[in-house]
């Protein structure tokens, strides 16, 4: 049983850490981590960051070298997650393209699709979004209603997607649409690679409760895609959409590491905020709560590594990832809520208080999205109950 890294792995880490120190936006490491206000400025900021990473050789770690990736090992990919989380690096606008679209095209796309799209995903020239959820299809993804009707060599697409991350910035969309009515609802679906820069596609950003705009609604009004834009087979798109799940091996890392960093920050916060001249961290009640959160956070963090170990040896992820996702996101929400509550108990000098309080309020509000996206907590419990414990599936219509 070992939690240490090899000498080669540590030198990879140091190389990345040093690169980050030299290439993060100005002031980032000093805690000035503000994203620009408007969407146009944000897009420029995100694209710049991707380009820097690309030029530094840090893009496409998980992709094979034959397709322009770095062919990095799983542990190196994990280290990348650890180091970028450690400095709260800016988000990657190309994340969906790199972790979802490119691997899918490499494994089950056509050669033409690979040559056309993969290099531009890597370079950042084309940003991708994933058109899955709809207003009436969230957890029940197979019930999607966006229609793609065959019309000669083309397909005409009508419908609406929602919660589509980075759709405001995207040139392409990996779209799940219905091409026919099958015996079961997940039959008759097809995946299309859709050009977002066509007249029939409109994007409306959505503002979420923390004030940010990371996703949007996408309206398809007689948009078109061609036969060559189909991934896999017609009517067999469900399998394509699900294909990606076998790649999510380090996906849990960001949740676990963010939890660990947040815990350290809460402890620091309790030391910073004062009541009657003493830090809150000296209060016995606060200490009990901190120690409880510490034990729970440590457990969540360790569990990710234990699961990661098993994934490395099994060669593919299993339903155990649901345990990590459920646990870390729910705990983060609670922990952030506790941190915000500390501002009611203690205070700090005016120069630092406002920014500190806003930072924690933002984190807390943002955390509400994590228990909903990538499979709600309720869906995760179903997965744990059914696929790990063997309990019977829900009753369905």
């Amino acid at each position: 049983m070992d939690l240490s890294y090899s000498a080669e792995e540590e030198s990879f880490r140091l190389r990345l850490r040093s690169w980050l120190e030299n290439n993060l936006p100005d002031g980032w490491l000093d805690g000035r981590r503000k994203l620009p206000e408007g969407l146009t400025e944000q897009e420029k900021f995100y694209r710049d960051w991707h380009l820097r990473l690309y030029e530094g050789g840090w893009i496409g770690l998980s992709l094979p070298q034959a397709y322009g990736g770095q062919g990095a090992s799983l542990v190196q990919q994990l280290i990348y997650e650890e180091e970028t989380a450690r400095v709260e690096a800016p988000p990657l606008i190309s994340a969906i393209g790199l972790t979802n679209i490119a691997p899918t095209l490499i494994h089950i796309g056509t050669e033409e699709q690979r040559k056309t799209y993969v290099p531009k995903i890597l370079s950042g020239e084309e940003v991708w979004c994933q058109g899955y959820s709809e207003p009436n299809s969230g957890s029940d993804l197979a019930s999607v209603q966006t229609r793609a009707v065959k019309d000669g060599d083309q397909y005409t697409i009508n419908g609406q997607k929602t919660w589509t991350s980075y759709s405001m910035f995207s040139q392409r969309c990996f779209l799940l649409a219905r091409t026919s009515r099958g015996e079961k609802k997940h039959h008759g679906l097809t995946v299309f690679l859709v050009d977002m820069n066509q007249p029939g596609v409109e994007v409306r950003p959505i503002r979420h409760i923390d004030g940010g705009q990371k996703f949007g609604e996408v309206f398809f009004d007689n948009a078109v895609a061609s036969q060559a834009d189909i991934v896999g087979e017609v009517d067999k798109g469900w399998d394509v959409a699900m294909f990606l799940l076998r790649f999510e091996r380090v996906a849990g890392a960001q949740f676990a590491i963010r939890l660990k960093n947040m815990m350290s920050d809460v402890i620091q916060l309790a030391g910073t905020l004062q009541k009657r001249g003493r830090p809150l961290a000296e209060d016995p009640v606060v200490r009990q709560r901190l120690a409880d959160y510490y034990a729970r956070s440590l457990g969540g963090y360790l569990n990710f590594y234990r699961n990661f170990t098993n994934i490395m040896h099994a060669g593919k992820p299993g339903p155990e990832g649901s345990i990590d996702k459920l646990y870390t996101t729910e705990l983060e929400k609670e922990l952030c809520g506790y941190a915000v509550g500390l501002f009611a108990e203690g205070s700090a000098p005016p120069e630092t208080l406002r920014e500190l309080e806003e930072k924690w309020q933002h984190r807390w509000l943002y955390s509400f999205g994590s228990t909903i996206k990538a499979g709600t907590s309720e869906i995760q419990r179903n997965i744990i109950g059914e696929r790990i414990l063997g309990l019977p599936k829900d009753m369905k219509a």
Partner: protein
Amino acid sequence: MVDFRLSEEEQMLQSSARKLFESLGGIQAARDYTAGKEESASLLWNRLAELGYAGILVPEDDGGMDLEFTSVIPLAEELGRTLAPIPFMETVVFGAMVLLKRGTSGQKAAWLPKIADGSLRLGVCADLSEPSVSDMTVPIAAERRDSGFVLSGEMDYVRYGKDANAYVVAADLAGEHGRAIFLVDRQAAGIHAASCHTLDQTGPSAKVCFERVHVGDDALIGGQLGTDGLQDALDAMNAALCANMVGGMSKVVEMAAEYAQIRHQFGHPIGRYQAIKHRIADMKVETEIARSLAYYAALAVQEQLGEAGRIVSSAKSYCSEAYERIASHNIQIHGGIGFTTEHDAHLFLKRAKEMERYGGSAVQHRKRVADQLDGRHALKI
């Protein structure tokens, strides 16, 4: 290389231990024990010793297997699954660790082989309501006499105190400034052990009274005053208790899941209803988090990490509260029969509650964690 799981040998140890305990009747030994039939427990203890499991931490020269501390995990888990009513933690872990950490070479040579061959069954006469040795109250006094010491006082809540044939005793020196640790034979004149009322009948406590018990100089562990090594032994026992609790939790989750599949109401197995399904899922999640903490606690003890105390206390506080929650939900899921003594569910609940106190309460453990936290080194592994 990141490899956070049991080694192959440890996994094999786990399956061998499971087979052994199943062959000896599984949880039936605990049920027999609570009904006053102690033969099953003795048989279990002897078979365990025959296979070398009592000597896992004892050096080979003293008849042991000399395994790394993490090897305790699989064994402790399997013992927890069956609620094995034997003083494994007190003897194989605590007793061995105290001797290894502070015993003289003569004492090690005399007593470690007796741990390894199962002839020693220990009770711990120290204040185990505290996770830190420095916070312990010491009700036993020791007076120096010509060729040894005289011990007087009473110790409550000595787990398996009536089954023990020897005690590790913490005592304060009367009239002097100092604390000492003794290993005392139960046969010594003046020792009485009486049962205390204990919730967990699979691990009953005794009040052990020392009425001017004369012990020789060789009973003073380490041959000198002081408690060095006692904290390490207590942390080791608490880490082992965490694995033991995880074993119990795992069994309880299996029990609940099995019942949810076979019990039908309103035309469906009750596990189909999300209220039940989700509750068992939450139980499973907590078990796995507890398992990760228990593994890391054992690793911290093994590697003698500076932060071992913080890690062990984090694990113990989480595990004991999780165990109680899980055992409580299990009774609820079983409905009426979960509320009867005919079913095993209550045994796990009572064990869980006892574990909340044994080796220090969750609140005390968290106090210890908080004392060792600051913004700089939180969550560094």
